[in-house]
Each structure stands twice: as C-alpha cells, then as structure tokens.
C-alpha cells in the first residue's frame, strides 16, 4: 500500500499519540487531538483527520487498545489506552531520537 507523502509525519504523530496516552492515561480521540495541538501547534491545526487513521494503525500494531465508554457529558465515545507493547515502543523510539539528536549535535559542534 502506497503511503501518502506525510510518511515522516506519521512517525512523529504515532510518537505523540503514544506519549500522550502514556502521560495522560486513557483518552478519546478528540481529547488526544486537543493535547497534541497544545504540544505542536502547527502540525495538527491543518488536518485533525490524520489522527483517526493513525489511531487505527496503532491499534493494528497492538500498541494501543480501544474501548467504548461514556464521556464526561454523557455521550458515547471511544477511549484509547496504551499497552505494554506500546510503552516499550515509546521507550525505544525515545532512545533512538535521543541518540540521533546527540549524533547531530556532535556533527554540528565539530565543524
């Protein structure tokens, strides 16, 4: 399946979702969108729609699970929570980002 051009973006989005769920606990789709918008203003203001396919993908990979529940204003909503596998994935991603950042820093400083 061809991935749209925002492939790089997907990776970042996945990370943000996992981090959000890890920090904030179970949330519904809109809540996650709000939180991520707070963190990365430019990224998601344009298209909240990319969130839902991402949530589906994360579900298929087994990093988050979903359950239907009742929201604070008594409406039906789907709540997502991170799994153990998801937490491990988060740690791994965080590590690799840090290593990458450290490497780039070294390159920039050396010259």
């Amino acid at each position, binding site marked *: 399946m061809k991935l749209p051009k925002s492939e790089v973006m997907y990776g970042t989005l996945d990370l943000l979702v996992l981090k959000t769920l890890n920090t904030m606990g179970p949330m519904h789709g809109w809540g996650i969108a*709000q939180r991520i918008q707070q963190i990365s203003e430019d990224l998601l203001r344009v298209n909240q729609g990319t969130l839902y396919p991402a949530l*589906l993908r994360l579900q298929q990979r087994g990093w988050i699970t*979903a359950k239907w529940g009742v929201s604070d204003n008594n409406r039906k909503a789907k709540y997502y929570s991170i799994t153990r596998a998801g937490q491990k994935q988060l740690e791994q991603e965080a590590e690799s980002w840090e290593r990458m950042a450290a490497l780039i820093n070294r390159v920039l400083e050396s010259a």
Partner: protein
Amino acid sequence: MLRPYLDRLWSLLRGERGLDEELRFHVEKQTEANIAAGMAPEEARRQALLALGGIDKTREECRDALGTRLLSDFAQDVRYALRQMRRSPGFTIVAVLTLALGIGANSGIFSTVNAVVLHPLPFPHLNEIVTVWEIAPNALDEQARTSFANFLDWKQQARAFRDMAAYRRAERNLTGQGEPLVLRACLVTPEFFPLLEGEPLLGRKFSAEESQRGNERVAIISQGFWQEHLGAPRGVIGQSLSLNESNYAIIGVMPAEFDFPPGTQVWLPLAPTPEQIEQRGERQFLVLGRLAPGVSLAAAGAQMSALHARLARQYPFYNAGRDVRLVPLREYVSYGSRRFILVLMAAAVFVLLLACANVANLQLARAAARQKEIAVRTALGAGRLRVTRQLLTESLVLSLIGALVGLVFASWMINYMKNSVPPDIARHVAALKQVRINGPVLLFTLFVAALAAMVSGLAAALHAASPNLSQTLRESSGTLTPGSGRSRLRSLLVVSEVALAIVLLIGAGLMAKGFRRLADTYLGFDSSNLLTMRVTLPESRYREAYQLADFFERVLLRAQALSGVRSAAAVSHLPALGSSASSTIIIDGRPAPRPGDHWQAEFRYVSEDYFRTLRIPLLRGRSLEAGDRSGARRAAVISESVARRFWPGQNPLEQRLRRSGSADWFTVVGVAADVQHDWLQVERRPTVYLPYLQAPEARMFLVLRAADNPVRLAPGVRAAIRSIDPDLPVSQVRTFEQRLDDQRSGIRLSATHMMLLAAIALVLAAAGIYAVMAYSVTQRTHEIGVRMALGASRRDVLAMIVGKAARLLLAGLAVGLPAALALAVLASSFVFGVVQADAATFIAFTALLAAVALLAAYVPARRAARLDPMTALRYE
C-alpha cells in the same frame, strides 16, 4: 497478543458505524469548544468540520487501514458499471444476450452432466462400488455376465472386496389386480441392498434364508409401484402379490431414489436352482462389488484377474481365456450416454469461447470510445490498477446479468431435453429425472460467468489502462490509423471465432450425417410396418414344453387370421436391438471346442413364418416349416456367417450341430442372410435359428407384418391372446420402428443439440465479423475518403473491405479446418463410430461459413463504397 487481531475483526464486523460515531463525537466536541471560544454556532460547526479536514478522506484512509477499502470500491464500481450500461443500451443488450447464449448453453448441458455423469445414483460411497464383468477376448458380448458358480467363487476368494452381490433382471406377470401387467423385476442376492446401503422406506431387506429355494416367495417393491399401482396403502407389508401365478408376500418398500437397476418395480430374492449353481457355463448374472477400504480400483482389478486365472486353470472348459474387468458403477450406469454428453459439453465450451470473443470485441470497441473518459480519470488520480479493476467489474456485471438470462435459456433447454426422451428410455437412464438447475449447477454458472467476464473483459481492460495519457488526451480523433495494437487484437479475435465456428459446424454436420446414416442402414430385414409385443407364459400353468408350443401355435394361427395381418411370427429375441442370447456351438463330427476356442453364436427360437414376416432373404435350402415340430427331425436354419465360419466353401446343409448345455442335435436345413445385431454398430453375428416347436421358450415376442399402419392391429391381437388365455398380460406393444426410434433417441438428441449449438456459433461468428468490419469501416472512413478522392472506384473500396474480411476468414479456416479434422478423428472412436470424417460435409459447411461471413462483411463494405468522398474526408 491476540488483541489487535480481535480489534481488527471486531472493527470489520462493526463496519463503519463505529467510525462515523467517533467522528461525529469529535465534530461535536470541537463545535462546543469553538462556541466556548466565542464563535456563532453555525460558524463553530463549520470551523470544526474544516479542522477535521474532510470526513470522506478520513473515512477512506481508515478504510484503507481497515482493509474494507476493496469492498467499498467494488460497490462503487458496480454502481458505476450499471450507470454506464444504462447509458449505452444497445451495447448492453447485445453483450448480455451473447453472454446469455454462451453461459446458458453451458449451464444447461452441465446440469445433465451433473446428474447423469457425476451423480447418477444416490448411494453413499458410490466411488467404492464397481461392476465386475467377466469378459472373453473374442466373445460376442462385451458386457459379460457370469455364472452363479463363478460368482460364488469370486465372493469367497476375492480379498479386494468387502462384499459382492449378484443380480439379474427379469419380468414377472402380475395378475389378480385388474388388468394383468408385466412388471420389471430384478432378482438379487441378499448382499445386494446392504452393499448399496439402501434402506427401505417401509419394512425390511431380504435375509440370507430367503435366497434358499422354497423360502423365496417374498418381494420388495419400489415406491413408484407402491404409489401408482397399489394406491400407497400403509398396511402394504404382508400384502400378497401374484407374480407369474405364485404368491409373494411384500416385505418392504424401497424409496424412489433407490432406482437401481433403473426402472425396477419389484426386487425378488435370487434363489438359484441346483442346475444354475452347477452350470458354470450359463452366464446370466451381473455382479456388483464394494471395494475393501484402502483398495484402489487398479489393485482390485489385478487381484481379480489373478483370481480368475486360477479359476480358469481349475475349470478350463468354462473359464479358459476369460478375464475379469472392473467398471465403476457410476460409469456403468451411464455407459451409452456419457460419451455423447461429454461431447456436447465440449461443444458448449466452444460456444462460450465464441460468445466471449464477441463480447471482447464489443468491449474493445467501446473502450476505444471511452478513451477520453478513462484518460481523465487517470489524470485525476485513479491508479492504473484501479481503472483496470473498474473495467473488469463492468465486465463482471455484464456476465452476471448474462448468466441470469442464460439460466432461463438453460431451463428451456432442460425441459426440451426431458420431454424429448421417450419414457421407455428415460426409465433406464439413471438420474434423468434429476436433471435440473440445482446448487452445483448454480455454482458452476457463477464460475463460468466469472471466467467469461475475465476472458471478455481482459483485453479491453488492459488496453484501456495502457499508459500514454497525454497522447490520448491530445488525440482528437483517429485521423490516421487508430491504435494498431487494438485492431490487431480485434483481427485475432475474428480469426479465432471463425476457427471455433467451423469446428462446431463440421462437428454438428458430421454427427447429423452419422445419425442419418445409422437410421438409413439396412439392417438385414424390413423393419417397416411391423408390430411387436412381448408375452411371458407363467411357469405355474405352462410347465411342459408342449404347453408352451401349443399356446404360441394357437396365437399365431388366430393372429394370421386377423384382417390387416400379412403374416405373423414369434421369436425369442428381436433382431437389431442389441439383445443377446449367445451360447457355444458344438458341431457334429468335429472335436469339441478347446478351451479358448470361442465358437459362439446367437441362438434364436422362431416360428416358421419368421423369415417371411421379417423379409430376411433365404440363401440356401429352405426356411423352417410347420412340419418341423416335436417328433419330427430337429431342423435349424443358420445365418450366413455361421456357414462361412464353420463350413467355408462347403455345403452346410445336412450338417448337425447342437447348443452347449443341451443334448439335442439339430440338422441344418437352410442358410439365411445375416442380420445386424445392434443398430449402432455394424456387426453381423453368427446366428442359429431353431424352431420353437422343437425347443419352446416361455418368453417370446410376437411380430406381425401389417399391410400398413401396424398399430391398428394391436387390439385384435390382444383380443386373440385373451381368448386363449385371459390372464396373460402382454407388454411392450410397439412397432419395430418405434423401438428403433427409442434406441436412437439418445443420438438423435445429441445431434439436435449439436446442431443448435452450431447454429448459435454461426450466428455469433457472423455477428462478430459484421461488428469488426463495421467498426473498421467507421475507423477508416477518412482514409476511404482520401482513397476515393485519389481515384479509387466504388468497386475498389468494396474489394478492399471484403478482401480484408476474406483474409481473416482464410486465416481462421487455416486453423479451424485441421482442428476440425483432428477432432473428427478423435470423436469417431469416442462416440462408437457414429461420427466419421467425410469430405462432403467439410466442404459443405466451409462453404456455408464462408458465404455467411462474406455476407456479413459485405453489408458494411457496401456502406463504405457508397460513401460520398467529401463527407468522408471531413469525417473525424
């Protein structure tokens, strides 16, 4: 670990409703937030939707992730296809009808294949049941019965079989229930029903004791007989039937599905007499066997051959030189018809290919017209795969609609077939009643429709999806030659259509000719204006030989006296219908035949007017006379081939011979011309005619020659018989021609079906050529205008177009004629020599196809020749 898969499955099952709800929730929350931030309600909602960025795209991407994308795409394609079809009704109707013809023909014939060839009998484990034949390499009968003694030995010693049973068909006179009736009976050993796993509807099966002489007066009747002749009384068990003047107690009723041997009305225990058990040479019984678990047919066959070889060494006189052959019951039951049915199936496949070629052509033409539309869609982002998928879906929708219409055609075909088979024949073809459109046939139709869609749509789909976007968009018209690849493909399709059509036409022509040849064959006697009927004298009242002889003598005398009767005769077996009663001949003065020497001849017991009634020419000596009766010297008339075989170049008159198993010597007094044994195969068997007065039989046929219209004699003859014996039923009252017709009905039906298929093929091929030529003319209109402007005359244009068609025709014939020849040679052995390659047929049908094809090309060619050059030049 399983969670993600379950989630996925659950999402799939919930469908998209969950997603819609989620998105709705999201929009509402965002709207609330916007209102809280100070926007007006409508603006708030609008901004919320905008922020979500296109619900449809979101939905699509989710679908992609979910994998339900394919399904929703398919639904969309189907809707689109239906719209397109509505827009071009002409194309749709022609395509659907063409496919309907092709698919319908296949469905119709497949339902026959399914019932008669694949599932002729409803026995569980049908694959394990075989018929065991005893054959002799140069004996007269291919299908061989065996003797009871051999059967017992086989049963005891064969380890390859779980069990074996023997049976013999017979007739029994039913009296005491109104009109006397002749029932189709079958004598069976006690293993018969358990072997076939047949459970009675009422009552029980035979027990082992009941096959001992003395205990065998019990009967099991068929459901049909129980319902039609007895009125289906619940208390039928224990009721008594008078069969051949003996009382039998009904102990069971078999359900209608247990139709084996086909047409049986009553089963009786086979209780062999001591002579029957001893006489190893009297071969009257057919044997069924059930293979032991895990034993293959080949292994069983080898084992039985070895076993029979042992028996041959033990009893060389009877068994030497004979072998055993196993034929699966499924094949045995449809033996004659299955080959013709399979040939028809092959023909139907040809017709389908033709139909697909036509529809492919139509779709190619249409795809050319839709090039712009497809190019635009591709430019807008539809992938090549998607476009191809969509075109194939269109093809599939056409096929499925065609399949539905085709099923209607198929059901007409099935009804026609079932009504054309005479009831006497239909009774004996297992499962003919089961031919209908049922589950397997529907599945098959679906499969064929899918295949047809693939075949007919692939060419167009692949071509349409070819890259060359900008060129297509820019191309305003086919000013020069249109896509040459596509026109080559079209030509190829026409060539293959011509090839297919000629094969079918020649095949049908050969079959029709073969059938007519069979129908016209001189059988050795005059079969017109003959009335026949069967009379069986019950043992209880006609025990002595003189009683039998006396009865027939009196009947014949009375019959002769009837008005309209030219002559009357009696015979034990009617000629030319394939019935066989053969035995070994022993010649006086010659050493007894060695084991392996098969001196076999058909034996017939006849009255003195037999040769005169049937108009069989007498070649030497005299015919049998009234004086050849008991007390006088025993006389016999032999057929030509007997004389040639045993007394070549000598005078056979006054020689003596006897039938093996009998001690009476007969003296040859005359030689008669040979008679064809079987209407299907040209074979004249050696026959010995003995006077019934000197060797009476209980079962005889009466044959009467009428001045004209033999049917009118029937009431008179029945009355004559009734006046001698009122309790005697008469069966099978039919004219000889009717009997021959009945036996030929199978081939006649096949030939008719073949001609129908060939006619469809001719129409399809003609339509195909016409369409391609017409299209080609349209495409080349501009070019034609140029040519005409440059000086080409009308005739030149005509010649050009027709010339192209002729070239395609020749190419098709070049492929098709050799194929037709090869297939004819193959078929002739496959269908018992009915089809024989013959030059006249080849030439005639080639000429027919050529004429039709050129005519089909002529119409658009004439249109092209009539073009006004100025209009043509301006045509774009």
